[in-house]
């Protein structure tokens, strides 16, 4: 009870205010304007609040300007770092983040709406395609994946970007939560994608490992990755050929 009361800032913590209904001690006393008229007080309040607002909004605006560039750099660095987990940064030398193609809505990717596909090149040679896909059938909801497909048809790697799997049970698909060594997700790296459509876990007759008692999450990841790769792999040469920023709708017709 008393805690709830204390939570309201209007009645501040008990110990150090002497009278409960503290009249403004140090605050500008309104006795200065003895018979306060509503209009007068309103005008004075409005002006003062306006002044304070201007000062502090200016402070915020200046900070915003000052941090704009560093923030942009940070966001970019973060994105590259994430991609580096499926495609080492040394493998390519182009501006990966700007070398993009818009994929149309593909059922195989599991994402409603267009998807941005990044293209990595070393000099003029195509190196890999990097794109996102989603597994809709995780144990508790969809699992977002980042996939790198190399130009030679092998898989660069798969990384779980976001998931809601049961902590301690199915969440080993996320390398940050996986206590095993090597990480479970590492078994995607370097795989040949020719049979990607049929990828599945060992329990279902495939050759992907899983942990006892938690089959659903790895099965979902493996199947989703396989489906996505199988859809993109045949079109990879065409995708590399498209101009930057183009829509890849024609390729998948």
């Amino acid at each position, binding site marked *: 009870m008393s805690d709830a009361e204390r939570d309201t800032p209007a009645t501040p913590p008990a*110990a150090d205010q002497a*009278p409960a209904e503290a009249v403004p001690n140090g605050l500008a006393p309104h006795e200065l304007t003895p018979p306060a008229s509503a209009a007068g*007080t309103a005008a004075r309040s409005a002006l003062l609040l306006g002044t304070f607002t*201007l000062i502090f909004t200016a402070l915020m605006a200046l900070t915003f300007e000052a941090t704009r560039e560093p923030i942009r750099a940070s966001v970019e660095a973060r994105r590259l770092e994430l991609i580096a987990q499926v495609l080492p940064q040394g493998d390519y030398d182009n501006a990966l983040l700007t070398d993009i193609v818009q994929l149309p809505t593909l059922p195989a990717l599991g994402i409603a709406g267009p998807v941005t596909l990044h293209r990595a090149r070393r000099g003029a040679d195509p190196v890999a395609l990097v794109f996102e896909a989603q597994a809709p059938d995780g144990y508790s909801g969809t699992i977002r994946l980042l996939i790198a497909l190399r130009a030679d048809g092998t898989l660069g790697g798969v990384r779980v970007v976001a998931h809601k799997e049961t902590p301690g049970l199915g969440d080993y698909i996320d390398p940050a939560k996986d206590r095993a060594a090597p990480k479970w997700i590492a078994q995607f790296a370097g795989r040949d994608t020719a049979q990607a459509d049929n990828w599945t876990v060992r329990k279902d007759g495939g050759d992907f490992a899983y942990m006892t008692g938690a089959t659903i999450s790895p099965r979902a990841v493996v199947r989703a990755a396989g489906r996505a790769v199988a859809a993109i792999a045949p079109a990879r040469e065409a995708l590399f050929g498209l101009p930057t920023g183009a829509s890849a709708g024609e390729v998948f017709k």
Partner: protein
Amino acid sequence: MITALLVMAGLALVLGATLGAASVLFKTQGDPLVDKIDAILPQTQCGQCGYPGCKPYATAIAGGDADINQCPPGGDEGVRKLADLLGREYKPLNAEHGVEKPKSVALIDEATCIGCTLCIQACPVDAIVGAAKQMHTIVGDLCTGCELCVPPCPADCIDMVPVTETVESWKWRYPVFELKVQPATLPAKEAA
């Protein structure tokens, strides 16, 4: 950036004007707190708190002029109730104002009373009857035990007699609880 500044300043002007006007238009009046405090005080009207009666003391507490631990007849329980009501920290009774005593009533030794009426004037609750040159009697049921009648008596004929238990006022005791439990007085609670 200029837009942001203008929007914020505009908002501030409107809000400031509203708040300023509201502070004048919706000023609250009256203080029901005094009555709530007065209801907790024991109404002995003894003045031990330093105020001429319970109501003035209640007003002083509400106004922040008096502390909550100045009422010996209200005792420890009274201080706790006041602390609860006001959300203040409990503190033990201030010994300067006296100590908690068992409830007693004044009794006039009728043989010695000279009928001076001084005690009648001192009694804050009209619990003494009598007239000039007549023997006075204290109505026991009305006496609050404030002791204000004792000092003025020139004949020293008023005694304070502790109230004894009768069959009617007898109370059943708190049952002996077998497992050691001391409810209600955890120091941690007071510190909070």
